[in-house]
């Protein structure tokens, strides 16, 4: 956040500063072949990556919640259909399909938003299945039966009785989704399928790679975004583990 307030956005794009400068006080992370300030590029890139992650993560989680609840609460044919689709899609490697979609979109349409959509398209199944199984177990609890007996309708039961109980699971699912989405946006960009002009973390690595950064001795070019990505994914994973422990006491007891 500090970064966003202080940097000048323009410097994250080519021709803004002196090219090929190693890290110094003036350019903390150095500058690249095209004359981007890599510190600025990283600050902007982290936020762009985060936006993709949050958008795709949120969309995936919301779809997951809706489908999970519908599936579990109403059971029957709807449940079978949703479960069937999820189980068919889950084992298909998302990477392949993402690459096919990302590379067939017209380049002009590849933006931060479309990246989020591409990532989201195949990431809603996991939360759907998680939420569904939790709702299934919730549904059989005593208090739901009591609520039913006391004449509450389905919607009321879902929102007032079951939903609050599932918040830890939803939070954990959301973080897991964000993790997936950030990672997917990263690897798609690394192989050159992102919006090439934007300083997304993956794009910076792609550009470094395609300009032979290591051979030319510009070692600082891919280092910043790589470290940033490790830190982001690492902290998301830790948050996820923490939430998991909160939601699932059995894991806690094991230690």
């Amino acid at each position, binding site marked *: 956040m500090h970064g966003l307030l202080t940097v000048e956005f323009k410097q994250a794009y080519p*021709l803004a500063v002196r090219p090929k400068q190693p890290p110094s006080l003036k350019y903390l992370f150095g500058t690249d072949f095209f004359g981007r300030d890599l510190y600025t590029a990283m600050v902007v890139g982290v936020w762009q990556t985060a936006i993709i992650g949050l958008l795709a993560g949120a969309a995936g989680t919301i779809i997951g919640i809706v489908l999970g609840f519908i599936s579990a609460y109403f059971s029957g044919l709807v449940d079978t259909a949703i479960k069937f689709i999820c189980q068919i899609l889950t084992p298909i490697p998302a990477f392949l399909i993402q690459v096919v979609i990302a590379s067939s979109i017209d380049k002009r349409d590849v933006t931060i938003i479309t990246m989020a959509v591409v990532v989201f398209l195949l990431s809603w199944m996991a939360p759907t299945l998680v939420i569904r199984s939790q709702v299934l177990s919730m549904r059989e609890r005593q208090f739901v039966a009591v609520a039913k007996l006391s004449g509450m309708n389905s919607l009321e039961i879902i929102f007032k009785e079951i939903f609050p109980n599932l918040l830890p699971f939803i939070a954990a699912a959301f973080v897991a989704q964000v993790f997936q989405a950030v990672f997917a946006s990263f690897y798609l960009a690394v192989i050159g399928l992102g919006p090439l002009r934007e300083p997304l973390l993956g794009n910076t690595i792609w550009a470094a790679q395609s300009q032979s950064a290591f051979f030319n001795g510009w070692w600082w070019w891919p280092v910043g975004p790589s470290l940033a990505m490790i830190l982001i994914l690492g902290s998301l994973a830790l948050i996820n583990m923490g939430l998991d422990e909160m939601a699932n006491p059995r894991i806690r007891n094991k230690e």
Partner: protein
Amino acid sequence: MEHLLDISGLTVSYYTDIGRAIALNQVDLKLKQGEKLGLVGESGSGKSTMGLAMMRMIKPPGKVEGGSVVIDGVDLLQLSDKEMLKKRLSTISYIPQGAMNSLNPVLKIKRQMIDAYKAHYPDHKLDQIMDLAHEAMRSVELPEHVLEMHPHELSGGMKQRVCIAIGILLRPQIIIADEPTSALDVVTQRQVIETLNRVQQKIGSALILIGHDMGLMAQSMDKVAVMYAGVSKVDNVNEYEGGNDMPHSGPYNLVLWDANQKIYDLNTDWWAVKAGRISMPEVKRVVMFNIGGQVGQGMDVVAQRVVNNEFDATLDMRSSVIGNILRQNSKVTTHSADKPPYGYLDWWPNSLWVNTQLEPYSDARVRRAMSLLINRELINEIIYEGAGIATIYPFPLYPGLEKFANSPAVKKLEAELQPGLYDPDQSAELMKAAGFTMNSDDMWEKDGKTVGAVINGFEGIHSDIVPVLVEMLRNGGIDADINFGTDAYQNMADGKAGLYMFGHGASLKDPYTALELFHSRYSAALGTTAGSNRFSRYSNPEYDKLLDEMAPLGGDDPRFQELAAQALGIYWKDQIDIPVIQWLHRIPYNQTHWVNWPTIANPSLGMNGAFWAHTGMLVVSTLKSAK
């Protein structure tokens, strides 16, 4: 001599659920006593089926449907099962694919040999059999105690030789070896093949070696038959002595070609040496590596291997990379030695092309406005380390063309039209005049649409220059972007909206061919595909008239020069496309092992230094050893 083996019209089919598959279709093959035949072909071409059919070992759903396999006047296909049993191993033996699984793991080698023998001569004495077994082991160079061992105690190569020993136990007239080396490493492969050859010579039988290692076949077989889709082409190969040696007149023969490499060996018999035309090349073997991927990808790895003295010459390098190669290895040189631009001029200067029939590029003011945003000095400085690579011409400045470019008429036009001018303010005025207004994102917009200038190009060769061009255009309000997708070339040919980074492969000596690229006769209509180099679809009768008048004239004709200058004037004034950079081949030549590469200092060769060009072999054949 009479043929030992005579196969004619052999047809084998497999019957499957989805119908009949013909594995062998009317195959003919003849073999003399003691002859060695290599049977090659792609997987599934029927090589193994052929071997099995000769042994009458085709199992359902396979079926021999016709033809004959005659050995010494006896047609094997007409024999009863019992008679055939006798023939196997004694007349014709088969060394199976994958020796690993062909030996019974729980029986000693001795036992397996005795069993094989007893099947033919049940009343022979054990001593007699053991003598033969010892002899067989000796001929495959295995110690005799191997007979007392179980198969799992042996290595793959030993097992394979045991199989050969069993195969020759009864001194058959024909040995069929079905990929006997497929699971072995190259050293063991060689031993096994040598063993097979020696044994075959010793007992004087004919050998059929099935496999797909052309190098192996070429080295050790008398002739090679090629199986293709169940049809043997053996007769042609019989007539053509020399196997897979392609007819050509160069100094090198292709000896191996697979997905990873091509290997050429020197032909010491080369006619040109005999005729006294050229001295014998010093390079004995040329190895070309396939580095994989798109041209220009993974070049940092290639560069590193040049620095490590593993490669002598490579594909084109980018400017920055080749500079660093030279800095890291003083033995490496380039066409221009250790000075920029580290290469030589190609005939392919790159422009930003557009489809001049498409809005908004149909407006010459828009094209000119875009050109005014290209800062050619900055391009030289950022991408080419100060070398003057940026250009304003659609042709390379080779001597004849340089003379034309420096002629007073062209110089006057250049001063008047300023085709290389960088002036954002003037660009903005032109955009306004063309009806564009600046939108809130600082992009020019007309009828709610920005210019939408996606630059189509090729990642391997353009990923340094195109991002810079995009930024220059964006800084001037042109909504530019990049497409390095696999559809980039198709977009250019189809005339899709956007800019195309592509060269003009045309003029060498005078500007006619380059200028003629924009003649109306190539102006394909919208919706049709334009040919390569015809992406402009430009149409201008006035321009055509100049070109038509030039066509019959010689390049040195003053009238020709005058007309060419006028045409170039139209090219600049109308901004048919936006010339950006000259194209260079920057090839590193490693002098650690070989010297005498074609360079400025060594122009006597006068040839293109690219090993992939037609002249590549000339370069190689004149290299001198550095020692």
